[in-house]
């Protein structure tokens, strides 16, 4: 019943403006026609709603007051037709508008995700929470304009229908209602403004208790570790009491507003009714028409308020659309590249590279070599890993894969040859097997996965889970412990069998016994392929063919782990302190 919009057709043309984002969400892929239909449907629904009190008046005048049975039947049929129209037009409109809104949100969501996961990366990467809120709430915010547009159009139509009915019934009464309602609404707005501010403030206070509760329980293990539950409970009680007081203040404010608003509108309706009654007495209007006028005066308030909120609705959707557009336009961390990925043995060479904390680094990982790299700190290590995967380009110098500069290659193509996962071992929701060899079934891929898991000492992770390789891993891998995650992530990197594999501190959460085993197994599994191990761990460095040490100004030492240990006191200090 629903045709899925594909990810590629979902991306709007570039460069993106908020207007284009809105337009794309609401009108692309035939959504424009539906939006038109939804607006038309809601409009007729509003008009029908406005006509209900008019019909009551007509039945009173034509049938109840006269005793004419024929008229009664006739007008009841008309009333039934009116309800049928009202029902059908709303049903149609509500469904059409939901389709536009949901599919529009889906399209925006997919284009945001497309950009967020683009191999080009982002120069200034937003926080995940920010990206998430753009992909979810802002996508809905943009598509929510569907509702703003269709309901406000319909409300305007309702206002017009009511106005026409009023003027046809009685020119002076109609004018009174039409000219009187806007100032009444304006008066309500004036009263509401300061109250609204106070309400928002108090609501924010009221929300705090919830935040504290969630925070305390997220840190429950920490609280338990230091026996702080009692203090925490007392603190929550205080916050809860403050929230209660703030909520009640907000509600008192709200109550005053309700009194003011209801009195003003009530008084206005009474005025209309009394003047109408005098006109009935003069014979200018019928009793039924008076009923209709009073009904319409009450009805008008809803759609008029609705119309007044069009500006606010547009502003909210535009703000969402702006955030979406900004994200879609975000500058990439690296450009693209046209050169072919060279075939070769997998030599990775840094040639006089300056990049962030790295200055003048030249080093070569020879084809088939297991090269250890020791850096001053984690920032340098990260910069090196980023360069190898072309997540960043060097400020000076070049990173070369088998003689071709990475900056001439498409970033996605680079990563086919050079796999350099970031240090944080993030797993994804899915089976364990799917995490190690994405998209794999059992069989050969299963064997690759098993070999990689074994080398990473992660086979016991699979053994310990119900279902083994088929066991489900929760979002971000959080159902596993830090050490388990790290080993599965290592297995995932090994399973790529990349020509060049760059591992950044892959065993920080692994105990030394296991780490020593992993070092040997990785060495065995990667024999013949190029591997860079960026690490400070002596167990891993001991397994390397060669170790280079990066200092403040480029490579400072080079040699085997054993030789460096005995000859370079600074190295000793760095890896054994």
């Amino acid at each position, binding site marked *: 019943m629903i045709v899925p919009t594909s990810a590629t057709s979902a991306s709007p043309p570039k460069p993106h403006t908020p207007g284009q984002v809105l337009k794309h969400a609401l009108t692309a892929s035939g959504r424009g026609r539906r939006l038109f239909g939804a607006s038309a449907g809601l409009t007729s629904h509003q008009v029908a709603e406005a006509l209900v009190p008019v019909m009551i008046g007509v039945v009173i005048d034509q049938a109840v007051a006269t005793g004419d049975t024929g008229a009664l039947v006739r007008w009841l049929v008309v009333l039934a037709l009116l309800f049928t129209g009202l029902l059908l037009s709303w049903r149609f409109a509500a469904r059409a508008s939901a389709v536009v809104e949901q599919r529009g949100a889906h399209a925006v969501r997919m284009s945001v995700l497309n950009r967020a*996961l683009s191999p080009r990366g982002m120069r200034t990467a937003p926080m995940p929470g920010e990206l998430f809120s753009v992909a979810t709430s802002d996508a809905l915010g943009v598509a929510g304009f569907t509702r703003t547009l269709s309901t406000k159009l319909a409300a305007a139509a309702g206002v017009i229908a009511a106005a026409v009915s009023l003027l046809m019934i009685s020119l002076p009464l109609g004018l009174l209602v039409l000219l009187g309602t806007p100032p009444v609404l304006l008066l309500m707005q004036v009263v509401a403004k300061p109250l609204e501010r106070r309400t928002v403030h108090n609501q924010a206070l009221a929300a705090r208790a919830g935040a504290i509760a969630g925070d305390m329980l997220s840190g429950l293990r920490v609280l338990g*570790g230091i026996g702080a539950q009692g203090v925490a409970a007392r603190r929550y009680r205080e916050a809860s009491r403050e929230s*209660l007081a703030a909520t009640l203040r907000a*509600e008192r404010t709200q109550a005053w507003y309700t009194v003011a608003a209801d009195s003003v509108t009530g008084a206005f309706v009474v005025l209309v009714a009394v003047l109408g009654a005098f006109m009935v007495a003069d014979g200018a209007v019928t*009793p039924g028409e008076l009923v209709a006028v009073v009904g319409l005066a009450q009805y008008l308030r809803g759609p008029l308020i609705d119309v007044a909120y069009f500006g606010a609705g547009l502003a909210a959707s535009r703000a969402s659309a702006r955030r979406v557009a900004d994200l879609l336009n975000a500058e990439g961390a690296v450009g693209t590249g046209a050169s072919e990925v060279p075939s070769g043995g997998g030599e990775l060479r840094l040639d006089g590279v300056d990049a962030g904390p790295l200055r003048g680094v030249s080093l070569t990982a020879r084809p088939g070599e297991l090269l250890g790299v020791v850096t001053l700190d984690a920032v340098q290590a990260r910069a090196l890993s980023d360069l190898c995967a072309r997540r960043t380009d060097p400020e000076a110098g070049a990173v070369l894969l088998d003689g071709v500069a990475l900056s001439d290659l498409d970033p996605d193509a680079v*990563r086919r040859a050079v796999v350099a996962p970031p240090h944080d071992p993030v797993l994804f929701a899915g089976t364990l097997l799917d995490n190690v060899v994405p998209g794999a079934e059992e069989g050969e891929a299963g064997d690759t996965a098993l070999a990689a898991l074994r080398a990473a000492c992660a086979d016991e992770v699979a053994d310990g889970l119900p279902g083994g390789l088929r066991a489900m891993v929760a979002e971000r891998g959080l159902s596993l412990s830090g050490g388990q995650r790290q080993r599965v992530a290592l297995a995932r990197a090994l399973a790529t069998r990349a020509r060049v594999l760059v591992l950044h501190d892959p065993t920080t959460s692994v105990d*030394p016994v296991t780490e020593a085993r992993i070092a040997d197994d990785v060495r065995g599994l990667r024999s013949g392929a190029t591997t860079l191990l960026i690490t400070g761990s002596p167990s891993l460095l001991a397994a390397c063919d060669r170790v280079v040490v990066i200092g403040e100004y480029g490579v400072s030492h080079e040699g085997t782990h054993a030789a460096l240990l005995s000859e370079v006191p600074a190295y000793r200090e760095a890896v054994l302190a």
Partner: protein
Amino acid sequence: MSLDTDLNTDLKADPDTGARRPDESLEALMPVATTAQTRRAAMALLRPHRGLVALAAALLTAATLTGLATPMLLGHLVDVVIEGEDVTRLITLTGVALAGVAALSAVLNAVSHYYVIRAGEQAAAGLREEVMEHALNLPLAQVERAGRGDLVSRVTSDVRVVTSATSEVLPKFVSALLTVGLTIVGLGVLDWRFAVAALLAVPIQARALVWYLRRSKPIYAAERAAEGQMAGRVLDSVGAADTVTALRLGPAHLRAAEDKSNAVVSLSLRTVVLITRFYGRLNLAELVGLSAVLVAGFFLVSDKSVTVGAATAAALFFHRLFSPIGQLLGLFDDLQEAGAGLARLVGVTLVERRPEPADPPAPRDASVAADGLVFGYRDGRDVLSGVSLAIEPGERVAVVGTTGAGKSSLVRVLAGVHEPRHGSVLLGGVPRAELGMYGTSRAIAMVTQEVHVFAGTVADDLRLAAGPDAGDGELLAALEAVGARSWVEALPDGLRTRVGEGAWSLTATQAQQLALARLMLVPAQIVVLDEATAEAGSSGALALEASAEAVMRGRTAIVVAHRLQQAARADRVIVMSEGRIVEQGTHDDLAVGTGVYARLWAAWSDTRPAQAPTDQRGSAISGGNVK
């Protein structure tokens, strides 16, 4: 109906819920109250506020009755002008009455709503405080087995649902209910036959409601679940964009997200279909009721039983019911949801807690003794199989071993997080069970690899450990000891800087130093550091190890070590394998020879086993207090 079958297959077919959906045995761990228990709890919560509840009910009834006067007076107005006698005076009088009624009903409406909310909010605040107090003091192991997420979602979203229902749904629902009821009575006062005509709508509405509720519950639950899964997928992907692109998983992740997103789209559209059908049925009921009232008016006016004004009033009465009836039926959903939330909240308070001993004996000293500890998690495999050890007051013990050897389980049993199946733990010569939860936490404190910075100021965070009355000087001294004073004082507002979620963000090393500073402030004389310095990179690890030194000074310390340097500095090293202690002794004794630890140390410090390990340690470790 095809809708239902589609929905059921959808729910079953979904492969991704497996890891997150709690199975039945887990749900049993964190109970949900039955309807009867929930009702009892709600009554108990309202009892202290019964004066307020009575006042609210009285005001609400008065407000609704006043509201009914308006159509009556409008009908009267019609009669006045039709009869045409003394018109000016009567219209003016009726107008004044209408204006008075409008003002009075505005005031009564607002005031009565306020009092309903006030009674409800006070009861809700009492509930959430009780639930939180309970939640914080549940046995940690039980909370973790049931999943902390479940508890967190209860005290956050369920509390939110229940309180917002209290202030938004409850007053509307009660007043709509009263309006409908009293309007029917009002119709009856005009003429009983009007009331009968209006009631013709009721069977249609009742059927519509039953029809809707039966379908809406599963479809909304499925929609929420689909939204949760979609959100999870999106967060999973965008939270690790670097990993996704490094492994070229982009297309697969986009496909997965698209599937989840499409599931949300189609479920939302199904809910819209359901709602439009429901309201269609309600519209039908309105038509039937309104026509019936008009027809009744027609015949009653014909045989002069009522005036045209009364017929008008009756029609207006019924027309006024459209919106409260829609509200009433629409609010059923929210009420159901709030009821479910309430049941989950009351459920937390039903978990039985181990009673705290009234007068726990004081530990004699800071010694730890364990005898024949056997412990396993629920799947039956024993993680500890017969561990015995004795730790002297002031001794520092390092626990070393592979993952899964039982190191963390051992220290968690010692710290009272888990109960051993067999064997005993004595803290300062007193059995742990006799100390109770409070006494245990005063004797032994633990910091793990898991860091959590509590939202609030740095001082607030530290006072969780030091108690609410601790002075700034005491806090600063603790920070000084762990080497964190300088950076804390360099924060924008020093100790008053807000940290944690949504505020100033601390580095991993800073957060862990804060955790160690908390440990400085607790009275416990036995401290456990479970990989407390592991995840900070090599430069951070050195700073943290210095902080840990300060925490352990003068106390009994048990350290689960990832870096062997920590083991080298301990008085005693315990090597664990498969739930047992396989070696123990000083570092110097264990590092020579052919044991597990010796091989480990050799691999760690040098590749050449020929070199004597003691020599290396002497030069590699400066300032360690190796005995």
